[in-house]
């Protein structure tokens, strides 16, 4: 008798469990996926919205990255254009400092292969106009030769001499002369 009672209890428990299980199975279905169409559409919209936000955030991040890269590139470009190489009096050879500077210039040109550069050669106003035109040409040519030897295509470098016609400092003293004996860079 004890055995049948316990069987009966077991049965009841099993049935109860089954009931519970079936109930448990049904309850979440009705909670999270409402069966009516209107609610479903609402949920879809919400998901779409969230997806869009995420995408926008990614886009914003990407843009920011791009802007930063661009700003960096602009900065590098400005630094490239701002760079000057200086020379000794009646001399077109490159000093150690000038070579170091020109390595950086060459690097930029190699990273920006779509660019053609104009190298300007300038002189101080001592000496005579005609010889200074030729000397300015030599200076620009020295710079070009160095850049070409550093791996920049010769077709991307144009030289022009201004002789003593375009001083950067319009004064007559050692300081001004030193600043005027230079090569400058310009993009075509």
């Amino acid at each position, binding site marked *: 008798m004890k055995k049948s009672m316990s069987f009966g209890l077991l049965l009841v428990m099993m049935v109860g469990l089954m009931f519970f299980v079936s109930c448990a199975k049904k309850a979440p279905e009705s909670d999270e996926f409402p069966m009516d169409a209107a609610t479903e559409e609402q949920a879809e919209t919400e998901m779409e919205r969230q997806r869009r936000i995420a995408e926008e955030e990614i886009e914003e991040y990407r843009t920011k990255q791009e802007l930063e890269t661009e700003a960096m590139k602009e900065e590098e470009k400005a630094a490239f254009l701002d760079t000057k190489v200086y020379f000794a009096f009646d001399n077109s050879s490159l000093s150690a400092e000038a070579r170091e500077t020109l390595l950086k210039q060459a690097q930029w040109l190699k990273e920006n292969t779509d660019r053609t550069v104009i190298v300007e050669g300038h002189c101080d106003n001592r*000496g005579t106009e*005609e010889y200074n035109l*030729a000397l300015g040409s030599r200076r620009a040519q020295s710079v070009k030769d160095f850049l070409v030897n550093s791996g920049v295509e010769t077709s991307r470098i144009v030289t022009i001499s201004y002789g003593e016609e375009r001083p950067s400092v319009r004064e007559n003293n050692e300081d001004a002369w030193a600043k005027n004996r230079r090569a400058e860079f310009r993009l075509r």
Partner: protein
Amino acid sequence: MKISSFPIVNACMKAASLCLLVVFLLVGALVGKSPAAYDYINISDPFQKKIPIAVPVPASLSTDQETARIAVEAAEILGRSLDFTGYFTMIDKRAFLDAPGKQGITGSEINFKNWRDIGSELLVTGGVRLEGRVLQMEFRLFDPFRQELLFGKRYTGEVSDLRKMVLRFCDEMIQRLTGDFGVFNTKIVFVSETDKNKALYVCDFDGGNLRKLTDGNQIVLSPSWSPDGRRLAYTSYKNDKPDIYIRTVNTGDEKLLADYEGLNITPAWMPPDGSRIAATLSFEGDEEIYLLTDSGKVDKRLTRSWGVDVSPAFSPDGKKMAFVSGRAGSPQIYVMDLATGRASRLTFEGRYNTQPDWSPKGDRIAYSGMSDGSSDIFVINADGSGLRRLTMDSGRNESPGWSPDGNMIVFTSNRKGAADIYVMTSSGADQRRIVDMAGNQSLPDWSPVMKP
């Protein structure tokens, strides 16, 4: 304008009425045939001794006020122009013993003693006649000590031709005295700064008749006269790089001669006809001097040395070329024999010698030499002997250019602050500024004698 002129010989007064009919063609044939009998001006050293000369106001041969005014003006132009040459000492008018205009014109009318007494070794008398707007002037050059007519000429033209007529006489008188035409029908071209850029200007031998030739919106450099005096070659950056252009002065027509990659600078017309132009180009990667055809094609490369070769200047026969080269480490002047191509160094004094210009007689080369930041004008014989310094302690003196008679040199000097155009005799005497304008002036070139 047409000025007709007729030589005056002692008994040739009746020629006056023919003057209007005589075409200028005659002049070339008649002037210069008279032998230079007297050595008034020493050709080899013309400035050794200045000749005292008297230039009284010409007599008025017509009675109106206008004639008197023209006579005074003619004397002034005559005096100033003769003084310009550096050959003469102008005797002060206040020393003249004869009343102005009353000294007589012809030999028989002149009291030569009155001119000898004031030390006048030469005397120019003149007469001015005005008929309507037709101006007739006659001038005579006398030697009061020999009581002799050396040269006389009558000119007919319009009143507005006064200056031209007087200068024509000056030219012919100088030719009579030296055997060479004077500089009175010549021009000087130069560069002047306008704000940041430059323009070409041209003026008469004495700085008169100043005229702007280019618009002044770009760098222009190194103007050089063609042998016929009609065209100029020069470098302009009008296309954003130094290219060579040729301009016809009277029409203003400009054409591109050379725009090779890199430099196209320092053009020089090759004598005698200027059918070739030498210039420095750098399209082969080095600054070398080339000979170009009149269409700008490379005819021949003249220099072959690493480094700068610039500023060609031909000898008058076109057989040699002076130029500047940095081949020895500093800019020096070299002379190349164009037949052999061999170049030899001309200058050894100083570390910076540039801007050579070959004298029209072929014997000398002028250049500018720099030391201690200051420049001076030097003259050296074409064989390297006889170096002479012409300027000293007067700022930067550069860009010497010979007058076509070889007796004067135009140059720039900043002795008064900005750089101005100056002239001096070829011995360095009588240095004076001839153009008074703002800014810096540079790179003058003296024209050949213009055909009238």
